[in-house]
Structures are given as C-alpha cells and as structure tokens.
C-alpha cells in the first residue's frame, strides 16, 4: 500500500515534467540551493496559448525539500519512508566464492620476500544478476591484533568473469607487507570483499576453513628471519698506526642473507676498554661500512700516543650481535726525537762474520731522559736479532749513538744482512724505529784461523792425542 502511495506521489510530481519533457534539461549543480520564488513543489508555470504549463526546476525542488524538512520534519520523515524502496536481491542470487590463491607455495617468508597473492573469485550468478565485487587483501603480521589492508582495492565488474568457468582472479603482486615487522612468527592473509549486497571476509564466511592445492580461505605463512653476520676478515682499521688527525678508516662488511638493511654501530674503546665514542650507520647487506675517524671527529690532539680498540654491534631490527674487540688504531705520539744517518761499516773490507761491525745513528734528543736505542740485525739464519741497547739522556746537541760489536756467527757466513734501530720515543716520522737498512753481504769464509795458526794446530793435536791416549787407556784397562 505504501509503495502504491509513493508511486502515485512520484507520478504526480513528475507528471508536469513528463508533459514538458521536450523542454527539460539538467542544469549544472550550484553551490548553494536557491528558491525559484514560484509555486511549491519546485515547479514553475507559464501560460502559452491559454494552457498552463508547469515546468519542474530541480533547484526549486531541492529548495522545497529543505524547506519541508525544516517546516514539518514529521511529515518529511513520513515522506522519506514512503519514497524508500529497499533493494532486495533476486531470490536466485548467491554470493560469489572468493579464495586466497597463493601459487608459490613457500611457507616460510622473510620480511623482504616479494609475495604474489591473488584473489580467486567464482560468480555463478547469471550476468544480469551479478553485481560488482570490491576486494581488499588484508594481512595480520606476528604480534598484531587486527588485519590491515595491503595494496589497493580491486574491482570485478559483472562481465569480467570467464564465460566457461565463471571465475576470475585479481592479483596483489610483489607485495612486502611485513617489511617493517619487528617480530617473527605467524603471518595471516584473508580477503575482504563486498558484492553490493553484503560484506564478507574469507576467513569467516565459510563454515570451516578451506584449503586445497594453492587455494585458501585464510592463508597462514611463517615469517622468519636470518640474523646478519659479519665477515671477520673484513674488519680492519687502516692505518693501524696513525696520527690522531689522519683519515683513519674503520671498515667491515656485514651480510644479511634475507637482504635486510643492517644497522651497524662502531664502538671505540680507550686503553681501559671504556667506550668513548660510538656511531651508527645503516648499510645494505654485503656492502662495506666505513667510518672515517676524521669525519666524525673521534680523535683529538690529546689522544696522541694512546692505543684504542673497537668493536661493532649490528642488527637487522630482529636480531642483533656484536663482534670481538679488535685493537687499533695506535695513535702516534708527537715527535720527541729526531734521528738521521743510520750507518753500518765492518772493521775491514773483507766483511768476515767474525769481525766487528760499527753501527751508528745520529739522534737529537732535547727532552727524553733514558732514551733506549736498540740495534737489531737480520740474516736468513738469525732474523731480527737484538744485538745491544744504548741508553742516552736528553741533550740539546746531536748525539751519535755507536754500537761496535761482532753481530754474526759462522752460520751467517755468505749471507746478506740488514739492520734497524728501535727507540723508546717517537721520531720525526711518528715512528719508533728506523726502516730496515741493507748492510750488504758477509764474506763466505767460515773459519777464522789458518791451518798454520796455533789454534788450529792445537785443535788437531788435541784430537790426535785424545785418540792415542784413548787407545792406550783402553788397552791397559781391558786387554791386560
């Protein structure tokens, strides 16, 4: 009965419009409703040839509607009820079947895995009954209470289904829904869809969860993570010995098999292993992280002469780890002494191993008392052998440090030797030793004494006499 009344009212309202159909056209929307000032009901009338023509004006009608709403809200509500016609789907309509299609079948995923997930939709309704279907992919990560929508909405129109199977798919390709996840664990996917009649969730719309082949009513995956690792061989500080303002580079390489970015923090420790600085960089997996001390201002002049150590902490947001403590850099002290003219000369030109050699070094030492200067020689038989130490005190004059000694033995004969000095203060090159200096070859002659020397003759006679005495003693002791 109400429907009938509503139809009559609509007919009454639009009757004049129908009569003047040829003369009606939609007018552009205005920003503010206006009153035509004419007859009620949004119509205007004009006389033409004795006939009264009613012309319906949309703006006037809207204005009347607003006026009625204000003037008589009760009747207006009643009119609304009369005009409301709820949409009732046809009796043969059935909601479409929607499933999550996950063809890759990979059950364990990482945060960086690009996932390809599809909505498989089957709509067996006749095309004239079908309505548009709107879909969202929703995901719930580890530790999350609610599903969140992933990507953008997908729409399936009534004519977009396969004629043979009445099915179609919509994809969400290369999605990384958990890239910022701070936990690992279960990851769940479902599809939200609306068919213009109702809203459904694939995880709740079916009586029991569906899973067959790669099709799921709800897709459950395991979000895993591989912790980042450090390439121990790549950890270095270069140069190891440096001035405090040198561009000292801390380098290391970190690898995350999942491809996660690695947050790397360099911790610098003083000689008491107390942390004095730290700095963090985020790097891509497999690339070198480099901290240049001078850029960060790690070291100052007051650090000259100190020994530092360092370690790294690193993580991918889920797992973190640290390296062992590595030593370095050793910051060179400010120069205290000036050295020059290292020299070595044998006692004579024969350069026999048993001869004395004179090693010398000029040192200007204005401030260090008890300065130790060590002489080292090297031959293939005796590499890096410390020969002697000289201690000198501070002086404004240049001092010549001398070592006059026999540094070799018979096994060095025929070999080349080198030498260097080490000292207990820093020289003008910020070093505590000279470089290795070649000293030339040692004469290959191995025996110092000639055959006619008393020493040689005495040695031979000793052997001969020992044999004769031995023979006599044995004979007297055992053969009588």
């Amino acid at each position: 009965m109400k429907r009938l009344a509503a139809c009559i009212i609509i007919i009454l309202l639009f009757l004049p419009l129908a009569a003047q159909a040829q003369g009606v056209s939609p007018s552009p929307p205005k920003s503010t409703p206006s009153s035509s000032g004419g007859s009620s009901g949004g119509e205007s009338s004009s006389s033409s040839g004795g006939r009264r023509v009613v012309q319906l004006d949309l703006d006037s009608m809207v204005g009347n509607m607003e006026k009625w709403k204000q003037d008589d809200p009760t009747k207006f509500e009643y009119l609304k009820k009369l005009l409301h016609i709820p949409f009732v789907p046809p009796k043969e309509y059935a909601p479409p079947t929607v499933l999550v299609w996950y063809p890759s079948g990979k059950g364990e995923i990482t945060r960086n895995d690009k996932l390809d997930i599809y909505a498989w939709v089957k709509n067996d309704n006749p095309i004239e009954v079908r309505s548009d279907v709107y879909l969202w992919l929703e995901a719930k990560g580890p530790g999350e209470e609610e599903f969140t929508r992933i990507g953008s909405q997908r729409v399936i129109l009534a004519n977009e289904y396969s004629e043979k199977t009445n099915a179609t798919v919509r994809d969400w390709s290369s999605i990384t829904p958990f890239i910022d996840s701070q936990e690992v664990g279960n990851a769940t996917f479902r599809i939200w869809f609306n068919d213009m009649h109702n809203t459904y969730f694939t995880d709740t719309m079916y009586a029991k969860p569906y899973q067959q082949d790669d099709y799921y009513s709800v897709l459950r995956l395991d979000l895993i993570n591989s912790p980042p690792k450090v390439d121990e061989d790549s950890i270095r500080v270069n140069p190891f010995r440096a001035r405090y303002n040198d561009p000292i580079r801390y380098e290391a390489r970190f690898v995350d098999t999942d491809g996660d970015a690695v947050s790397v923090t360099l911790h610098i420790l003083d000689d008491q292993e107390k942390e004095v600085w730290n700095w963090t960089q985020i790097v891509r997996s497999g690339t070198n992280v480099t901290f240049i001390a001078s850029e960060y201002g790690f070291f100052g002049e007051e650090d000259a002469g100190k020994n530092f150590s360092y370690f790294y902490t690193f993580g991918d947001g889920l797992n973190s780890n640290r390296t062992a403590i590595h030593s370095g850099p050793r910051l060179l002290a400010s120069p205290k002494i000036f050295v020059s003219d290292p020299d070595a000369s044998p006692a004579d030109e024969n350069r026999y191993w048993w001869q004395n050699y004179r090693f010398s070094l000029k040192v200007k030492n204005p401030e260090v008392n008890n300065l130790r200067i060590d002489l080292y020689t090297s031959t293939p038989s005796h590499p890096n052998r410390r020969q002697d130490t000289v201690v000198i005190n501070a002086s404004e004059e240049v001092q010549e440090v001398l070592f006059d000694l026999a540094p070799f033995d018979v096994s060095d004969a025929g070999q080349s030797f080198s030498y260097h000095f080490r000292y207990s203060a820093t020289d003008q090159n910020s070093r505590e030793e000279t470089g290795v200096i070649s000293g030339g070859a040692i004469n290959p002659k191995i025996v110092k004494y000639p055959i006619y020397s008393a020493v040689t003759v005495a040695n031979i006679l000793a052997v001969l006499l020992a044999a004769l005495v031995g023979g006599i003693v044995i004979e007297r002791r055992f053969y009588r």
Partner: protein
Amino acid sequence: MTSLFLNGIFGVGLFLLLLAGGAALHRLNIERTYRRVAATSKAKVVDNREANSNGGKISKDKLKEEIMEEMFTRQGSNFNACAVAAWMLLFAAFAYFYFLTPEIFPRHNYFQVSAVASGPLGFGAFGLSVLLFSLVVAAFIPEKVYGYYEISRGTKVAVMFAVPLLAVSIFLSVNLGTIYPETDLPSRSFAFLALFASEAALLWPVYADALGGMR
C-alpha cells in the same frame, strides 16, 4: 775423478759398505772355522737339548765356545793400543772429510752448529765428540775381531801405519775447512785416499782371511 772425491753419497756409501762387508766376512770366517773343527772333532756334536758330555756328546754352543777360546790370540799391547786409536781416528777422519764444511753436504755439516763452530775450539770439539762416540766401537775391535786372526807382521804394521795416515787425512780436511769456500783438489784427493786406504788396512785381516778361506 774430482767428482768422485766430492760425491758425498758415493763416499759415505763406500765407507759403510766396507764396514758392513768386514762385519759379514768376520762372521763367515768364524763360522767356517767352527765347521772345520767340528768335522774333525771326536765328540759327537748334537743340538743343545741332547747334549750330554758324559756320553761323548757335545753341544754346538759349547764346542763353539771352546773353539773361540782356543782360537783367541793376543796381538800385543802396542798393536792393540794402535788399533783402538786407529779405529777412533778412522771415524773422526771420516767426519772431518764429509761433515766439516758445507762443501759436500751443504745442509748437514758441523757449521750448522754455529754456537760451537764459531768458537776457537770448534775443530777440536768436533773431533773429540766423534772420538767419544767411536770409542764404543773401537774399544772392542781388538778383542772381538783381531784376536781371532793370525795377523802377520806386515799387516800389523799396516794397521799401525793407519794412525799417521788418518792424522794426515784429518789435517788435510781441516785445511780444507780453513780455506773454505776455496777448494784444494789435491788436498781433497789425498785426504780421500788416506781415509779409504786406512779403512782398508784396518779391515784387511778380515778380508785376507776370507780370501784365504775361499782358496
């Protein structure tokens, strides 16, 4: 010929071969003598288990022991003293010739022991240490070897002459050490010949008896 004197493998091999040959021939000589005496013995020689001296039987070991006692001949004090000294010097001369300088065995020589070799008593220390080791062998040569041979006067002279010959070899080897890395082929040759002539003289009683036995 030069390479022969400088060939360490050849020289050491020849030296050891002569020694081993002497030891083997000495054993054969003793065995041959025993067999001859046993063949002419009136007593019946039986195995040790069947030995019964009361029944006219004698064991092999007993017979051998008796024969060895009968065969033993004292060679004289001077000869024994010279023989012991000569055998000690033989090993010392051998060591001086092959193992003093790096000339023959560059990686196995006395100068690898640089702490001792670098000192003024290096030559003496080397020779004395070799004498000490060789004493163990040399002390028993007159009793265990020469005592079972009839050594002619000429052979005894030859054995005793080995002492000065070996002294010469040692002297020449030391001379080669003092001039190293220079070399002196005549010295090297003579030292080599003196060394092996002495070894031959010291082993001659054994080889001579073996030759006689073969005839």
